[in-house]
């Protein structure tokens, strides 16, 4: 059985595929802090510098999902689902002009998931 840290809802995946068509290769980076933070940001792949300070959490809808290492330390016991909600953010995320925002829904990893993913 495959264990995943991050998954995506059908509705979110539909929007994601549309945005991929429009913008080409993209990545998710989970943001922290302030007004539009604590949200996943969808960015053109070549725009955002990824290095060893970022953790690859998994892939959803063919898009890599990253989080900074220090943030990951506080998130690693939870499972994430990328969903969408009507709204608008002030960031540079590519979903903003669509009138929808990607949103993270979280739950605790169960014991088996925790054992497989975090040990």
């Amino acid at each position, binding site marked *: 059985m495959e264990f995943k840290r991050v998954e995506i809802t059908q509705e979110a995946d539909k929007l994601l595929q549309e945005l991929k068509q429009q913008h080409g290769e993209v990545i998710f*980076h*989970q*943001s*922290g*802090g*302030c*007004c*539009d*933070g*604590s*949200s996943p*940001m969808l*960015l053109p792949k070549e*725009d*955002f*510098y990824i290095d060893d300070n970022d953790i690859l959490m998994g892939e959803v809808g063919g898009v890599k999902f990253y989080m*900074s290492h*220090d*943030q990951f330390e*506080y*998130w690693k*016991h*939870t499972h994430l689902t990328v969903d969408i*909600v*009507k*709204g*608008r*953010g*002030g*960031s*540079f*995320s*590519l979903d*903003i*002009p669509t009138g929808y*925002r990607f*949103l*993270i*829904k*979280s*739950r*605790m990893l169960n014991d088996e998931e925790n054992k497989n993913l975090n040990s």
Partner: protein
Amino acid sequence: MDIRDVNFKNISMSYSAPKFKEKYGNFINGKFQDPIDGKYFENHSPVDNKLLAKYPRSNEKDVNSAIEAANNAKHKWGNTSAAERAGILHKIADVIQENLETFAQMETADNGKSIRETMNADVPLAADHFRYFASAIRAEEGSATELNENTLSLIINEPLGVVAQIIPWNFPLLMLAWKVAPALASGNCVVLKPAEQTPASATFLAEKIADLLPPGVFNVIHGFGPEAGKPLASSPNVDKVAFTGETTTGQLIMQYASKNLHPVTMELGGKSPNVFFNSIMDHDDAFLDKCIEGAVLFAFNQGEVCTAPSRILIQEDIYDEFIKRVIERTKAIKMGNPFEESTMMGAQASSDQHQKILEYIKIGKDEGAEVLTGGDAAKLDGDLANGFYIQPTILKGHNKMRVFQEEIFGPVVAVCTFKDEAEAIEIANDTMYGLGAGVWTRDAHQLYQIPRAIKAGRVWVNCYHDYPAHAPFGGYKKSGFGRENHLMMLNHYRQSKNMLISYDKNKLGFF
């Protein structure tokens, strides 16, 4: 202006949203201009989700036109005398003050925060920041140092030129003032992009001050981050980028700036600890009452503040007694129509923000946090039923939980206890951020030593959420860098020109 001066007793004034035009333009080169491609977006009020007005959905063309106007204006504006610039900044402050009520109503309509906050904090503070920087530039000077008997070093301050500024939606007019006032004061031209959730007050200000500033000195571009923010932040034709927002966009803007080798300042949020030592309970007096309010300030501005005291740390021997009083006071928070002056807490700024906060409350519960009060959306009646309201919420847990580590940006506070000073400092500093902190104590040693040990740019001691001009504000760690609200910000918007003058008639002798 100090928000503590305000007496809210027996107030029952009621206000309403000001009248908006159907649509507005970008403010470029001293005039309102339609977006070049003719696209607009709708701006709805979080109070009741009703349409306020349409604003330009600008793109690179509009942005470049604003940057060009600013570049054309920079030479002349950069060479005006400090006296002239100060005079104009004072007039801008007058305009804000004369239109205080309209600005306050506009901020409440646009952002959802209560009118008592916009009337008494946001708008008067914005005016004061313009006055502060107007005054500061009259009183300062460069320097002259005789390095030896024949060599003089002169340091002259010069403006950078054109500054790009991207501001958030939580204090639309006040964040504008924090950024625009020092940039104009130091002789720069500005291209400002307000948050798309709150475009109203920047537009209204541009309308009111259009005749005060030469064309091109102050420009406002509306639109979405990927379409208007990105070309502004990555333009080689601006000289600096100032940003308030979240960490990922912060990193992105720094990357763009690195390509152009442009300086940046960043204010990127926090997860501020508010630490209560046991001596606060030594007496049941006015000070204890102030401490209780200090804990409940997590609900100020619906918690949508970068420095929100969103972690409460209470010394364990006073926990039961103190938290009881804090819960009582939290339950007494009056929610309702943000336009009523008796309303203490208004609407969250947007539907996505509302949803995100509810998700955090849920994961907090899943992680095992105990809900001490609140814990859900607030359902209001009538038109307000369509607005975005959350009950002020206190969660008890431990500092490794996500609700203790992530900026929720809502009226949700996470509470834990500590044994002694060492543990208080350890928990306070166990965070990615370092923007604000609060320390509450009657102990004279603690009130100096604990703030020194906390890694944050602003530590409020026996107070919280006070933002006077001339008290520098900015982050440690992932909360960013730069110090706003203080004359040291002028140097973040300037170059230091050094003239090294020799009075020696003799050659060096090398050649």
